[in-house]
């Protein structure tokens, strides 16, 4: 369960007193006391941490505050996990479904801990080709686009349950990027795809229409930051500072969104309008509320029942919010069931 | 030998286009370096010759003098720079099945993926001759060159001499009017060479074909030819002498008269080379060249050990 942040020890990052263990708790913790450090973060193409890096490149926002942010870009969040388990990265991220699966399949030797919720989103709609799909049931006999191993598998699962669709009658096609899904939509190669608000215009351009929201099928998506437990224990102060500064940086982006979106477009080529749209579709601050916790349990339950992994487990054991509690005690509101 | 002119070579000159060297198909032997650096010269200059129908005609000359070049022009593989070559009064402009060619290197000329019989049938097949007739003609030609019993073998199962026989049979079967042969026995050992020379004379007698035969072996020239054209040396080589061999077939190289005729031919060749060298480098130097000329002739004469 929640182990109580105030009893945890963590090594100070100041080189001078590396040997001595200092007790830290929310009362006496001050991020200004944390020395300069490097944090290696695996980012997802176009996610908040990649944006942090872009902001840092243009303004030195993190660097000026003593955080040397190193990012490595992966096509999907889940790809960051292997790098964390092999100690090549400190922090990565996963969506609820991906994380639950990963941990469920490597129970025996996993060190992974979710330590903050980066985002809760209902900004995904099932976009369909209106010529072929008028209602969810019409998917039977048609082609649905998914991505292997990512949260869309869960979203479709919930969709099929909700609308009593015979999944054996739906042809699922796996793509490896949304670009491919757009291509399929444009060429009438498929009939449905889970589209987030950021990219929705591209699908609307080719005539697709939203049909079902993920909240309609009870699949609201939570995304989490993840790290090895040992890292969280040994670098609690640094992680805390990282979370705090990130929160502030997100606020900065909010205030300077237009200029920032320009930087993004220049750096990675993502269209400025899409950047703004994508940014606005979600909130940006680190929390760990009860609903996020319960979402994980729910997804775990669903995955186990669908045979994604052999043994049932309790996700409670794979959460460590001590660092978050140091800087934002009010945001850590989950209680173990 | 009838009296009709079969091949008429008039004022032929040839200059190689060095840029296209790699594209040309002629591949002389490696001793041709003497001509390197003179690429803009004429190799052949104003060559004139008439060959009668049914004649056995020899081109004799030192290595690199242009025999193969002239032969390739007659065969239609090379373009002439100047002059005209006519077969039966028709200008030659490319290869044609009325002129069969036997190449020096049988290995590169016959088709290793075809059996002996299929190789020999090749020309007939190209002309659309029916299978049964093709087979009959091919078997006759195979018998003529003494390969009976080997019809279904592949070239890699044959000796060098047998491969050369396949090539000859292949040409014969296509029934050309003229047979063009470029040192066809040059790569064979002495014994096989002797046998094939005799066979060639027999085939010539039986078929009455016009034969144009290149050699730089004086004894071979005298043993085989009715008439011998003697070449001067390149650049500006041409046919400077024509000798008629006055003996009936079969000839015997060990016969003293034949031996003396070989000597005579040798002298004629020497004269031709000496004269053209003198022309190239000025008369005053001619005497110093005496030795060099003898060397070239000796090279052209593979009789002695």
């Amino acid at each position, binding site marked *: 369960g929640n182990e109580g942040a105030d009893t945890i020890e963590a090594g100070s990052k100041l080189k001078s007193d590396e040997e001595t263990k200092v007790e830290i708790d929310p009362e006496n913790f001050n991020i200004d006391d944390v020395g300069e450090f490097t944090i290696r973060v695996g980012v997802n193409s176009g996610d908040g941490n990649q944006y942090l890096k872009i902001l840092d490149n243009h303004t030195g926002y993190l660097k000026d505050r003593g955080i040397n942010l190193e990012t490595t870009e992966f096509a999907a969040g*889940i790809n960051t996990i*292997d790098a964390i*388990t*092999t100690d090549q990265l400190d922090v990565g991220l996963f969506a609820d479904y991906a994380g639950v*699966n*990963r941990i469920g*399949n*490597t129970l025996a*030797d996993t060190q992974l801990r979710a330590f903050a919720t980066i985002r809760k989103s209902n900004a995904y709609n099932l976009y369909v080709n209106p010529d072929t799909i008028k209602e969810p049931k019409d998917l039977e006999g048609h*082609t649905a686009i998914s991505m*292997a*191993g*990512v949260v869309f598998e869960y979203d479709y699962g919930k969709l099929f349950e909700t609308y009593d669709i015979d999944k054996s009658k739906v042809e*699922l*096609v*796996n*793509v*490896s*990027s949304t*670009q*491919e899904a757009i*291509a*399929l939509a*444009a*060429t009438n*190669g*498929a009939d449905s795809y889970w589209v987030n608000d950021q990219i929705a215009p591209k699908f609307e351009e080719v005539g697709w229409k939203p049909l079902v929201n993920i909240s309609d099928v009870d699949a609201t998506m939570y995304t989490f930051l993840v790290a090895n437990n040992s890292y969280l224990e040994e670098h609690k102060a640094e992680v805390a500072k990282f979370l705090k500064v990130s929160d502030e940086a997100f606020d900065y982006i909010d205030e300077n969104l237009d200029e920032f979106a320009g930087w993004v477009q220049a750096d990675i080529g993502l269209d400025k309008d899409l950047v703004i749209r994508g940014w606005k579709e979600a909130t940006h601050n680190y929390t760990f509320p009860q609903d996020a916790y319960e979402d994980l349990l729910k997804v775990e339950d669903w995955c186990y029942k669908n045979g994604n992994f052999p043994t049932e487990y309790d996700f409670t054991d794979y959460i460590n919010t001590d660092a978050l509690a140091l800087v934002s005690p009010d945001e850590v509101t989950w209680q173990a069931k | 030998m009838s009296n009709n002119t079969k091949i008429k070579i008039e004022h032929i000159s040839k200059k190689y286009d060095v840029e296209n060297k790699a594209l040309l*198909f002629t*591949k002389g032997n490696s001793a041709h370096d003497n001509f390197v650096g003179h690429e803009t010269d004429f190799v052949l200059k104003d060559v004139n010759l008439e060959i009668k129908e049914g004649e056995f005609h020899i081109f004799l000359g030192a290595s690199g003098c242009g025999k193969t070049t002239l032969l390739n022009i007659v*065969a*239609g*593989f090379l373009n002439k720079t100047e002059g005209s070559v006519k077969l039966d009064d028709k200008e030659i402009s*490319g*290869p*044609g*099945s009325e*002129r*069969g*060619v036997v*190449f020096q*290197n049988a290995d*590169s*000329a*016959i*088709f*290793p*993926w*075809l059996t002996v019989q299929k190789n020999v049938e*090749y*020309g007939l097949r*190209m*002309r659309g001759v029916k299978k049964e007739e093709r087979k009959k003609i091919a078997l006759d030609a195979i018998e003529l060159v003494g390969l009976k019993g080997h019809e279904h073998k*592949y*070239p*890699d199962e044959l000796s060098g001499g047998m491969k050369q026989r396949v090539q000859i049979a*292949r*040409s014969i079967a*296509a029934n*050309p009017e003229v047979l*063009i042969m470029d040192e066809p026995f040059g790569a064979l050992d002495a014994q096989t060479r002797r046998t094939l020379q005799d066979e060639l004379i027999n085939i010539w007698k039986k078929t009455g074909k016009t034969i144009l035969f290149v050699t730089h072996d004086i004894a071979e020239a005298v043993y085989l030819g009715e008439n011998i054209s003697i070449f001067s040396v390149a650049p500006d080589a041409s046919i400077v002498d024509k000798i008629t061999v006055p003996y009936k077939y079969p000839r015997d190289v060990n016969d003293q008269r034949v031996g003396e005729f070989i000597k005579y031919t040798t002298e004629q060749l020497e004269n031709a080379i000496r004269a053209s060298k003198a022309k190239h480098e000025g008369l005053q130097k001619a005497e110093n060249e005496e030795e060099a000329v003898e060397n070239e002739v000796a090279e052209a004469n593979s009789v002695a050990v």
Partner: protein
Amino acid sequence: MKNITRKIIKSGIISWAVLFVIWGIVSLFYAESFFPSPVETFVGFKEIVLNGKLWEDISISVQRVLLGWSRALLIGIPVGLLIGRFRIVNWFIEPFINFFRFVPAIGFLTLFLMWFGVGEESKLILITYASIFPIIINTIAGVNTINPVKYQAAESLGANRFQSFITVTVPGAVPSILTGARLGLSTAIISIVGAEMLAANSGLGYLVYTSRLYYRTDWIFVGIVTLGVLGFFADKFLRFVAKKSLKHYGVTG
């Protein structure tokens, strides 16, 4: 006695045994999901053999490879022959060959999907694209090794340009065409992973590519081993057949 030892060494059994031992020892130091041992791989193997998944993957991938490769042969051999034989074709087409052979097939992933759809077509085209280059290049090389005297011979025997192409160029290039076919097959097998990254639901490439998303490193190993074994034997078979049937074309295996 000495002969038996030699035979055993030659058969490669010892090398494989050594590899297995090394694999086993290395895997002792790592977790299964990081570096599965031979035994763990075998367990994973049994799992997908028993539920029929592996057979399905193999059969679908083999079909794709064979189809894509056959098309590459069907296009590549004639193109190579024409380029090799006719200078004008060479001048027009060779620049493309020497450009596109440096452009990776996975660069075209999205494009092929857009142009040719989610079905088999786009996958086959990707395989064909990847494997056509060694076929064309070797065919050209084969044509270039044909002794020009053969063309002269054919033409003085009455063959026209088309006939000499069919009766000299084609058979004369056979040994190199075969080399090209073998290299093309190896490229086709290699490119199956790329092809099955593209909207696939099964196949060995799909197995290798998606197993990591399901944290099944053992299945990645199963896929890798299967691809290697299939390729190994396909190549052996191709060499054997060619050696037996194309001996007189100069194929020595």
